[in-house]
């Protein structure tokens, strides 16, 4: 019996010792963290931005963070499985736009997950026409729709790519009720599909990005592949924070010529529609608040240092750090705004 008691005490002591790191790690990020992202591409802005943030955060906390480009559905599943903080997620406005557009695999992120800090904006969301197009501007496009001409817009349905299209329809409706029916979607997939739709003559306007399409805008007009920007959806205030040199041969001033207020896509009678694609963290709903605070504090210090902003700007991102609570309030408000746009269009 004495021997049994000794063994029991020893076992309990060992168990307590072994459990100690676990108890500690329950309140802070573990040594190895997996950062899943809502995109399967390592060539896109989500991966690029996440890699920059992950590296800075890992260095600050002295931990390892690996970015896995698993795609939205798999990322949400991975996040839902792990409340220890081993799995974190970075995604953008698609998180709630997917739900607003009724996409499968999207729940309300504000109810299902904890919203972490925002980290950056990609101001590059844009719409383009062929360089040889009769449409020189968004005004031409909306006027064409008003006069009964059918304008085909290549988008990937159900998210960031579609929100600008919804706004175009809304602006057409405000201009002349019923003319929004002349703005029709051409559902495509990747950026290459959208470009191809333009080159095949299947789309008059395509959704694209400054980063992905800028070089095509530099081609001569007689090149079949040449394109022209007609609208950059970012707010002017956001674009003004971009490097003056802009991207490629398109300067910041050039970009401002394609965004509100120079290009007007009306949201209502007095405001233009704008859209900034924002990246933010998402956490498991039950993840310890201490970890949320740890990440907030670490990122506050990282952004206070200033080095990350330089890297983000060099990669054509606009730094946009907001701690978790402020980020949540901001994103809820943003989501409500776009819910209105979408509901006005779908109500037609």
């Amino acid at each position, binding site marked *: 019996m004495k021997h049994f008691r000794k063994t029991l005490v020893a076992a309990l002591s060992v168990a307590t010792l072994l459990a100690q790191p676990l108890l500690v790690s329950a309140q802070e990020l573990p040594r190895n963290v*997996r950062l*899943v992202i809502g995109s*399967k*591409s*390592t*060539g*896109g802005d989500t*991966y*690029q931005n996440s*890699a920059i943030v992950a*590296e800075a955060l890992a260095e600050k906390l002295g931990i390892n963070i*690996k*970015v*896995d*480009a*698993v*795609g939205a*559905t*798999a990322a949400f*599943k991975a996040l839902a499985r792990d409340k220890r903080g081993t799995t974190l997620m970075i995604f953008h406005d698609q998180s709630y736009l997917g739900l607003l557009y009724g*996409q*499968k*695999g999207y729940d309300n992120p504000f109810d299902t997950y904890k919203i972490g800090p925002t980290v950056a904006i990609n101001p590059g969301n844009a719409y383009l026409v062929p360089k040889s197009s009769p449409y020189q501007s968004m005004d031409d496009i909306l006027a064409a729709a008003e006069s009964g001409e059918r304008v085909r817009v290549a988008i*990937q*349905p*159900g*998210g960031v790519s579609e929100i600008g299209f919804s706004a175009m329809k809304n602006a057409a409706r405000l201009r002349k009720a019923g003319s929004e029916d002349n703005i029709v979607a*051409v*559902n*495509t*997939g*990747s*950026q*290459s*599909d959208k*470009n*191809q*739709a333009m*080159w*095949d003559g*299947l789309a008059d306007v395509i959704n694209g990005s400054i*980063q*992905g*399409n*800028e*070089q*095509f805008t*530099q*081609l001569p007009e007689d*090149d*079949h*592949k040449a394109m022209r920007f007609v609208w950059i959806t970012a707010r002017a205030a956001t674009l003004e924070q971009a490097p003056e040199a802009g*991207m*490629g041969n398109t300067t910041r001033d050039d970009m401002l010529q394609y965004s509100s207020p120079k290009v007007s896509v009306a949201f209502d009678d007095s405001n233009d529609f704008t859209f900034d694609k924002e990246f933010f963290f998402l956490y498991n709903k039950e993840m310890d608040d201490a970890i949320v605070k740890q990440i907030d504090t670490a990122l506050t210090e990282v952004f206070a240092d200033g080095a990350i902003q330089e890297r983000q700007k*060099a*990669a*054509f991102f606009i730094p946009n750090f907001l701690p978790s609570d402020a980020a949540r309030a901001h994103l809820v408000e943003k989501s409500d705004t776009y819910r209105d746009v979408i509901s006005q269009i779908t109500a037609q």
Partner: protein
Amino acid sequence: MEFFDLISPLFVALVFAGTVVGIVFGAVPGMTATMAVAVCLPLTYSLGLANGLALLLGLYVGGISGGLVPAILLGIPGTPSSITTTLDGHPMSQRGEGETALRIGIIASLVGGLISLLILYLFAPTLADFAIRFSYVEKFLIILFALTVMAALSSNLLIGIFSGFLGIFISLIGTYDVSNGGNGEYRLIPPGTEYWLDSGFSLLPVLIGLFGLAAILEEAEVGVPEGQKADDIKHDQQRKFSLSIFKGQLTNLTRSSCIGTFVGILPGVGGSAASILAYSNAKTFSRHPERFGKGEPAGVMASESGNNGLTGGALVPLLSLGIPGDSTTALLIGAFTLQGIQVGPLFIGNNPSVWNAMIFAMLLANIFMFVVMYFAIRQVARIVTVPKQILFPVILMMCVIGAYTINYGIMFDVWTLLLFGLFGWLAIKLRLEIAPFIIGFILGPSAEVYFVKSLESFGDLSIFFTKSWIAVLLWVLIVASVTGSVLLSRRHARDNGAD
């Protein structure tokens, strides 16, 4: 920065290291070139663009080439693009010519890689302009052409075609993905399984389940004869390899390399289609099509020169349009993005040094691949002498690890591996044909997307015949391929009847 400033001993060492690691990834069933590049992508941050690309291009070439080792020796395609290598390479290995098959595959890989590299270097922008003339319609017809290989690979035409269509059907389970232009709706998913099947079955677990696990189950059913020694297992180390085996194959090698390159330049068609099309053509134009699938060296040459031809081809749209040609080059674009470099129609003109460094890295990678693999053959080929009771558990473990890691740790992929392993074992008993099934499974999703998009875009079925001269040419090839398969099947049936 000048070209010679970018080339350093570190650059060469990274190409070499990348090639070796890539070969290992390609050779392990369930691990691919794409996975190798994905794992090493973050390293390019600290290496800089030229050195980072040196590593990644080495991984790419090595990863594509390494797939031939398990395809030939174990009958398990190391990568999806080496499926057709399995069809003739493994029968060669079974009759004691594994080493010869490996040498053929490696030489063909080198030829394919170098031809595609030459085409890339000389014609990249021109080919990119040509590639964008292929709309949904032409891409669908290319996939349809590749699907005709289902008939060519069938020992029984009807059962083969049925197996192929079953593969297409199963490949369509899941969400019609919006990122492919779909509507985001579920289809063919049994109620209650949406959580697991929303993305359908992943290709690689299905592939290694059907080829790897099914074979192991079949062998396990037979059992290992007591007292079997390593020396009893066929091994052709005594036979001397002669290059004369390539006599009369120049056309096959060149055609297959060009097909691989051509498929590579078409974004979205997929790497597996390259070797399938090259193999299908080699069989159609062969004087002895009946030998294909039974250990015909020309089949290994076509498949391997085709899939390595892809490496240069897939870089054409990447570097000329900023559009990746296959899944691995989709990862390569990340290296540019991480360094803040735009890839698009102006890339080559704006970055001649980086462009030349990439070509040089590809050239080195092909040479290193050849040297490393060719001189390691004798040791590698000895894998077939490892007793099965030791070899099979190791293969099984590698298959499970590969399946688990392919989508960054999804347990359902392991269940997929086991499910399709069991299905493959039963299919053999039911006389279903595995090769057409897997080809249907690989090409099915692309066929669906391009078919639906063609109709959405152009309205009716007549567009498949009237869209362009390219479409007409593709129809000619499709009809020739189907006719050839039917005639061959009839001759086969007649010969069997005569026996």
